[in-house]
């Protein structure tokens, strides 16, 4: 990146401190309105269209939109933009199909978490679904939280001028401490309000900066000529890919959108929306935010490629352009937007992880039902403890945890998105099918992902089939020991293991590893839900509708 002058760094640091002050102020205001458990976990179902709409979208994107998405078009030109229709199609499904149905279903059920939706929809007398869903969510979310804290630490240390290992540690601690404080005090409401503030900041940065950068280049025509002069492939929708590689890439990028209905930190925003009218307004707000942010990020990458062709890492293009082109105060705001994209996701995921522990495990599974006040206190302490664990993992950089992050988006998407869609469409699924879908989505994601990386990890990939059998046997034994499994659950586990091994074989035999793992995992999970439900006896105990 271009060397930054000391005075610029000071100005940027002042803006960053002011930004953190705004987050703390919002957290304090939200805390004053948070009085009980449902307030803490779901803002008392009182969110308006703006906070629900922008919070749902901002929390889903993380630093990826200001770093990774920018890097895609910087590196691949226009063909790097295929993520945008993929994500926007996911938004369409979420806001027009999921949100209008999920809000009333959740209100009628009294559901607080995604796990609640699943268990109350199909019935869960022995907590099999709740334990399975909570385990998947906790593993994915803890990895996510730690990885985002690491990214926030790096962004903070570079923007505040901290150097070396101690600078990184300080960056992680400052960013995480503010987020833990805000989330534990104000709960869901604080997270949604800070997301709104941060989401607007991200949108403004990603609209204004590319427009300014392109006008500095001499307009859009000059941008096209500049890109063509570097490489004419930067101006085509396929880049230098042809044949199956091109179609595999496009389907994979469009497939990103399949994950959105399964993201707990996204769909809980719809559950918390005040009424149907606000859901309708939310649809427009979320779609406009998505178009602005995804295409803004894409244009930043394109403009960055022409303006800063010598930049080694395309993911730094937004920050590099800001520091080179605009006044330090505006550059500070744009850096705050980069960090906002990260922190808005951290706070949302931290709250989901904490809700999984305090609500799903302690209150619902262990049956320690408490009054509203105790539920609030429990929620606050859980956020603090989970956040501290996140800091420790981020600082010690435990490799196993970061390994889980590689599977997090696809794993959550494949485990829950088909189920949420089936739950809302009221198709013939029972609780055994739901169990099979969660396990199949997770298993196929891991197997396929390892297949995609088989060139670098051939030994691990070769072991997938017997690792799957051991995992299935362990789940069956645990289910029997806990006297939790019915015959239908056993069929569900065996089906999930079989589909995982089949997917491993497909990757190995047909070389389908170029396909993004979420695509096969999503459809196989949906198939597992329907097939297992069809062959298992109807569950006793009617599911709540």
């Amino acid at each position, binding site marked *: 990146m271009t060397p930054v002058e000391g005075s610029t760094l000071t100005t940027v640091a002042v803006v960053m401190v002011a930004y953190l002050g705004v987050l703390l102020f919002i957290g304090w205001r939200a805390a004053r309105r948070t009085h009980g458990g449902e307030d803490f976990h779901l803002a008392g179902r009182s969110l308006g269209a703006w906070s629900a709409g922008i919070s749902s979208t901002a929390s889903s994107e993380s630093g990826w939109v200001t770093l990774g998405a920018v890097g895609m078009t910087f590196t691949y030109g*226009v*063909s790097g*933009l*295929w993520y*945008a*229709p993929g994500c*926007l199609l996911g938004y*369409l499904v979420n806001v*027009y199909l999921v949100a209008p149905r999920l809000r009333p279903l959740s209100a009628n059920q009294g559901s607080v978490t995604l796990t609640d939706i699943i268990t109350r929809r199909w019935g869960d007398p022995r907590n099999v679904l709740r334990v399975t869903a909570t385990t998947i969510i906790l593993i994915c979310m803890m990895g996510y939280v730690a990885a985002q804290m690491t990214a926030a630490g790096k962004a903070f240390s570079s923007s505040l001028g901290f150097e070396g290992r101690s600078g990184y540690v300080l960056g992680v601690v400052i960013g995480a401490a503010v987020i833990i404080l805000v989330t534990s005090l104000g709960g869901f409401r604080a997270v949604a309000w800070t997301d709104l503030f941060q989401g607007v900041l991200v949108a403004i940065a990603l609209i204004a900066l590319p427009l300014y950068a392109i006008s500095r280049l001499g307009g859009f025509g000059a941008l*096209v*000529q500049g*890109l*063509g*002069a570097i490489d*004419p492939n930067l*101006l*085509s*929708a*396929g880049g230098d890919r042809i044949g199956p590689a091109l179609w595999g890439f496009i389907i994979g990028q469009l497939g990103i959108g399949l994950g959105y209905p399964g993201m707990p930190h996204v769909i809980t925003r719809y559950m918390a929306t005040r009424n149907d*009218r606000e859901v*309708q307004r939310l*649809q*427009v707000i979320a*779609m*406009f935010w998505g*178009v602005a942010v995804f*295409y803004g990020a*894409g244009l930043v990458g394109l403009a960055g490629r022409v303006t800063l062709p010598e930049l080694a890492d395309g993911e730094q293009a937004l920050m590099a352009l800001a520091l080179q082109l605009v006044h330090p105060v505006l550059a500070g705001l744009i850096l705050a937007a980069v960090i906002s994209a990260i922190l808005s996701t951290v706070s949302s995921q931290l709250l989901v992880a904490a809700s999984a522990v305090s609500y799903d495990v302690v209150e619902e599974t262990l049956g320690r039902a408490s009054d509203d006040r105790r539920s609030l206190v429990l929620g606050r302490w859980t956020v603090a403890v989970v956040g501290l664990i996140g800091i420790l993992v981020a600082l010690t950089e435990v490799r196993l945890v970061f390994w889980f992050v590689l599977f997090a988006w696809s794993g959550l998407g494949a485990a829950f998105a088909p189920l949420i869609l089936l739950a809302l469409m009221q198709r013939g699924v029972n609780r055994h099918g739901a169990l099979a879908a969660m396990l199949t989505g997770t298993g196929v994601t891991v197997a396929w992902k390892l297949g995609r990386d088989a060139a670098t990890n051939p030994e691990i990939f070769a072991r997938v089939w017997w690792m799957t059998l051991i995992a299935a046997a362990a789940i069956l034994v645990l289910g029997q020991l806990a006297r939790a499994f019915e015959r239908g659950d056993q069929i569900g586990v065996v089906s999930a293991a079989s589909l995982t091994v089949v997917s491993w074989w497909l990757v190995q035999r047909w070389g389908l590893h170029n396909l993004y793992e979420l695509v096969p995992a999503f459809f196989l999970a949906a198939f597992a839900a329907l097939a297992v439900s069809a062959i298992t006896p109807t569950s006793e105990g009617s599911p709540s509708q």
Partner: protein
Amino acid sequence: MEEYSLTLGAHLLLWFFPLALVVLVIVENLLDKHTREPER
């Protein structure tokens, strides 16, 4: 000097898709407002 231009696919990806999506969202919202029963 060679003149470069976006391919048809790039035009569709970069301009047509987002504009069509925005128009669809606006039209859907207007239709929705038009057909919604007045709230009491």
